[in-house]
């Protein structure tokens, strides 16, 4: 459960988030939509404490995150751009993160699930884009966490991995986890998202279910509703 209250963030004169109010519920998949540069990643990084908000507050499982760091062990995070120490082997990276977090991880079933066994002994700089993304998924789900925050998790995944990824999300949702993700893939949202948030120019333009979004902005298909919003036909 994450409660975001009046979150504001500017980079210099660029007002990226202009007062976001948002509840991310347990046992629910929340999808954040919005055009490039609308502040999706900035919102996510604010929850992680990587971006320091200008104003507002964020609460995770009942506790404010300001000046706090321990709460991050309640988050499995998948960054939009996976930045790894490139010389490490995948298994060395996994071992290092387990050592730092001082917890055992469930990397073996995940490696099995995403066919990563062979990649384990390779240095990260030798991995293809899709394999990097699978490693990224493994790292996000390796530790049991009440919250999963995923920034464009499906970029570069092959169809089989995509199916496995969806199964994983549904399983974690059934386990009562709060799942927050951003994506540009409309079908993923239609299939999985319970709550949809549409960010536009620093504000929440829409918040509700997929069905509500469709009926409010026209279009039998979700992509048409989104296209309607983006081309300004809603006014």
């Amino acid at each position, binding site marked *: 459960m994450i409660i975001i209250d009046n979150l504001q963030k500017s980079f210099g004169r660029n007002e990226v988030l202009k007062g976001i109010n948002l509840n991310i519920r347990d046992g629910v998949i929340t999808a954040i939509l919005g055009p490039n540069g609308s502040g999706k990643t900035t919102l996510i990084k604010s929850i*992680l404490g990587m971006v*320091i908000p200008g104003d507002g507050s964020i609460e995770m499982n009942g506790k404010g995150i300001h000046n706090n760091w321990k709460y991050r062990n309640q988050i499995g995070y998948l960054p939009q751009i996976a930045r790894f120490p490139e010389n490490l082997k995948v298994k060395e990276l996994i071992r290092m993160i387990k*050592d730092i977090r001082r917890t055992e991880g469930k990397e073996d079933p995940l490696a099995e699930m995403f066919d990563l066994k062979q990649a384990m002994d390779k240095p990260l700089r030798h991995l293809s884009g899709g394999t990097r993304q699978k490693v990224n998924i493994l790292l996000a789900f390796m530790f049991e966490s009440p919250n999963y925050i995923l920034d464009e998790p499906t970029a570069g995944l092959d169809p089989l991995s995509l199916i496995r990824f969806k199964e994983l999300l549904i399983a974690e949702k059934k386990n009562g986890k709060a799942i927050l993700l951003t994506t540009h893939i409309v079908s993923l949202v239609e299939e999985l998202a319970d709550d949809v948030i549409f960010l536009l120019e620093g504000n929440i333009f829409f918040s509700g279910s997929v069905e509500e979004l469709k009926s409010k902005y026209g279009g039998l298909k979700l992509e048409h509703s989104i296209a309607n919003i983006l081309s300004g036909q809603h006014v």
Partner: protein
Amino acid sequence: MRTFYPASMFKILKYSLFDLTRSRWTYGYFLFYLIFTFGLLYFSNDVSKAIISMMNIILILNPLIATLFGALYFYGSKEFAELLLALPLKRSSIFMGKYLGLSLSLSLSYLLGTGIPFLFYEIQATGQAWNFLLLTVAGLFLTFIFTGLSFLVSIRFENTIKGFGISIFIWLFFAIIYDGIFLLTLLIFEQYPLDKYALIMTLFNPIDLSRVLIMLKLDISALMGYTGAVFNKFLGTGLGMIVAFGSLVIWIVVPVFVFIRFAKKKDF
């Protein structure tokens, strides 16, 4: 939440050191000092002269290497930092760990590179052991100080070229420009009593401070120079060394403190 959690800092320190032991720069720096120091001791028949020559190299080279490697390592390990920032770690632990990792790794290369040759030539039997030890301490101070300064610059500037440029300028400033300005003002205001001014000016340059620290101990008046003589005159050897020592500690603490403050406020 102001308490310090050394356990996680040591983890970061461990992985930073581990990372640096894979870098050929670490070995290059070590080998340079090893060969240079052996060469110097082989060709000079007087250990005290060798120490003076060593000093002149260390005062320039240790700050330069710490400056260059500081920027190189800071920008080069950005990915590692971003990975760590998403984990349950304090920002101060992450960045202190990195700072100590690089400072210690550079110190180790320098210590072994100069220490092995001097031990091989049995410095302990020459009566120069304390002078060598003080020289070593001054070199360690400069390593920690200039690593801190270049980390401070690097966290402020996203642009690598800018970061490198400003870091190198800081080195150039303290190694060369500062003394030039200092000498010039001494010449211009020749007729005034400038001793106190000289004393204070020295406190603001860590390289000069290190030189004074060594010179006070060596006590060779011909080499002490103006600032060394001023320190000697006003404070005497003992107090002069304590003041120089204390100022050098401040030169480590303040930049690192400001660096950590910037690190806590930065958006990644």
